[in-house]
């Protein structure tokens, strides 16, 4: 027992002293948050203001395309909460060209289109050009044309189309002698909020924020498992390649050694989670500064129980992965060999991450439920489900039980392979050979 403690202590101290650990512990959550929140903030703050030109063949829409189109949803909070999808607060700098009576619109728009190729930063550069045909009011086959350099500039496209159409409709109606004020009243759009009802009766707002939080937490859950798993694998390969293992195995049983190592690594993981949760608590107590920055109220999306789930599923997922990596380490002699062995396994383990989108958007679909109750995939999928939805308690308990059983089986197999593999210095074993090892030892 004291031998195992010595191994736990060593593994723990060596790991937490590493720069990687300090970085992961202190900066990783910040980094993750930044990675997901900053881009949306950038969009939200309208940093991507666009310069567009409108060639108006009707010559009647000048008023609608005032020099500057202010954001439709100037409040980032509203934009993020998803009420008006596609109407992110992006300002448009419009250059209006009256082309009424011009016979050849193509010719008229040519100089504007040329300016699309200019450097974006230059004075005359344009991001997009909208051409409105002269028969826009009456022609049944009239089409507007939107030119831009990036086909993905959907926001600008949608905004311009929407402004142009509203304006055209307004012109059509006023043209029939209806008071412009009445037109405005009659055609006013009603914004909507999306509200998700949960079993506990709480109301949650905003699917897009959920989305971001889901990804952040999934990343916090899964990435450290991979990183420390790899570290464990490298550690074992190093012990083998530098023959430290001979000294270790001549002092204790392989099972003691493996248990000590895995408990040591688990303690590292727990430390990490504890620090993270304390950091989050500190931030929360500090008045949700980050939440304000992002323009929404975090408590709306995160129930306190989620943190308990996070710690729980983190440890379960973490131990599962560490066992898998320990097998690879024990079976191989060099980092390179070990990497090759785990690379395909890693892809398989990453599955929930690849389909995270589907899990977050449909947390209670049969696929999500199945994954959350499956070995290996359970911890991360189940956690994401508890985050964005409220799965039945028996799902959660079953998932925990499956994970614990998985870890127990993995540990048993790892110990066997460890016993044989740790002293085999020959070529890398094949999977069938590994299987045989589990039987001989």
């Amino acid at each position, binding site marked *: 027992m004291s*031998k195992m403690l*010595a191994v736990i202590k060593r593994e723990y101290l060596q790991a937490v002293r590493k720069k990687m650990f300090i970085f992961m512990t202190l900066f990783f959550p910040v980094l993750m948050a930044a990675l997901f929140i900053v881009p949306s903030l950038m969009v939200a703050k309208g940093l991507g203001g666009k310069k567009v030109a409108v060639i108006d063949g009707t010559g009647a829409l000048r008023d609608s395309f005032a020099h500057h189109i202010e954001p439709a949803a100037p409040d980032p909070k509203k934009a993020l909460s998803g009420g008006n999808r596609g109407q992110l607060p992006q300002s448009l700098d419009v250059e209006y060209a009256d082309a009424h009576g011009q016979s050849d619109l193509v010719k008229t728009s040519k100089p504007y289109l040329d300016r699309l190729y200019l450097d974006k930063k230059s004075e005359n550069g344009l991001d997009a050009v909208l051409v409105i045909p002269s028969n826009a009011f009456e022609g049944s086959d009239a089409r507007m044309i939107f030119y831009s350099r990036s086909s993905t500039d959907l926001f600008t496209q949608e905004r311009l189309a929407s402004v142009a159409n509203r304006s055209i409709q307004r012109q059509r109606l006023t043209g029939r002698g209806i008071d412009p004020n009445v037109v405005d009243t009659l055609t006013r759009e009603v914004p909507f909020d999306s509200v998700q009802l949960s079993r506990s009766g709480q109301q949650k707002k905003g699917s897009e924020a959920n989305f971001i939080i889901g990804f952040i937490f999934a990343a916090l859950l899964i990435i450290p498992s991979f990183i420390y798993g790899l570290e464990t694998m490298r550690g074992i390969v190093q012990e083998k390649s530098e023959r430290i293992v001979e*000294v270790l195995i*001549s002092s204790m049983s392989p099972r003691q050694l493996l248990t000590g190592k895995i408990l040591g690594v688990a303690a590292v993981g727990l430390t990490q989670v504890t620090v993270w949760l304390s950091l989050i608590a500190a931030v929360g107590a500090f008045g949700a500064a980050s939440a304000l920055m992002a323009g929404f109220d975090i408590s709306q999306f995160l129930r306190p129980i989620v943190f308990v789930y996070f710690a729980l599923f983190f440890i379960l997922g973490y131990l599962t992965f560490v066992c898998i990596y320990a097998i690879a380490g024990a079976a191989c002699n060099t980092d390179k060999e070990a990497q090759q062995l785990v690379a395909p396994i890693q892809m398989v383990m990453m599955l929930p991450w690849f389909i995270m989108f589907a899990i977050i958007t449909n947390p209670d679909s049969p696929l999500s439920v199945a994954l959350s109750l499956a070995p290996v995939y359970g911890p991360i999928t189940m956690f994401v489900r508890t985050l964005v939805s409220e799965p039945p308690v028996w799902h959660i308990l079953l998932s925990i039980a499956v994970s614990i059983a998985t870890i127990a089986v993995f540990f048993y197999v790892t110990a066997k392979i460890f016993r044989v593999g740790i002293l085999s210095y020959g070529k890398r074993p094949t999977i069938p050979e590994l299987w045989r090892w589990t039987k001989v030892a």
Partner: protein
Amino acid sequence: MSVVLSVRDVVKTFGPVRAVDGISFTVQRGTITGLLGRNGAGKTTTIRMITGVFFPDAGSIEWLGSERDARDRIGYLPEERGLYRQMKVKEHLLFLAEIKGCRGSSVAPSAERWLKRFELWDKRDAKVEELSKGNQQKVQLIGTLLHDPDLIILDEPQSGLDPVNMLLVRDLLRELKEEGRTILLSTHMMAEAERMADDIILIHKGKIVLSGGLDEVRNSFGRNTLQIDYEGDGAFLEQLPQVKRAMIVNNGAELSLIDGADPQQILEATMGRLRIRRFELAAPSLEEIFIEQVGAETMESIR
């Protein structure tokens, strides 16, 4: 004298290779036993079975004279360096003692004493990887002694050491022996074994070809070896009809004679060609015996 360790008929195969093929020997308390053999003879495999790293396929290994857990009674210095590069020297030493069931705090004073003796005290907080190979070897050696083992197993302890450190290790082994500790010394350096060992075990291709007390073994080969120190070119000595084999070095030769040869004839042959400083009929050196026993066929196959 009492037996500390008894190895009986142990066998270990790796696939088609019988690395150790029915080896039996005993190790006496308070002695230095030399485990000799060429690289790949089976020395390290034998040691790994004693240390519990491998299980023997057949045979038994028995520990006598103490109730302590066998693993904790051994101080094992593996052939290749076995240290964590990233750990600090002193921290590493305490770890090595802890995995032998000692408390770090209880061995700290003796760690300090050893580090000072090996001139490593000022490097106690350096990382292992910052040390020279020789110093790493010394750290490893201290690590094998800290937990007060009954049996110290050293696999090629002098590899990587300079002559000064080699002397240091040699003195240390004598000292440990005087303290009543038992040492199993695996080496392919015959001269070293000859200096240190009380008993020898010569392994070849997984089998013991020779074992017993050093003097006893040497004498059993009879006094048919001529040791000559001289001035001049002694290359011709090898060609003499009475000489079976010759090892000629600078101004010295060890000649192993054919049966019934008269040393006097050799002395006569050297007259006028060499200036003799020493001429002695002796028991063969361990190196000579080694080549006699296991080297001849190999030499043949090389030639």
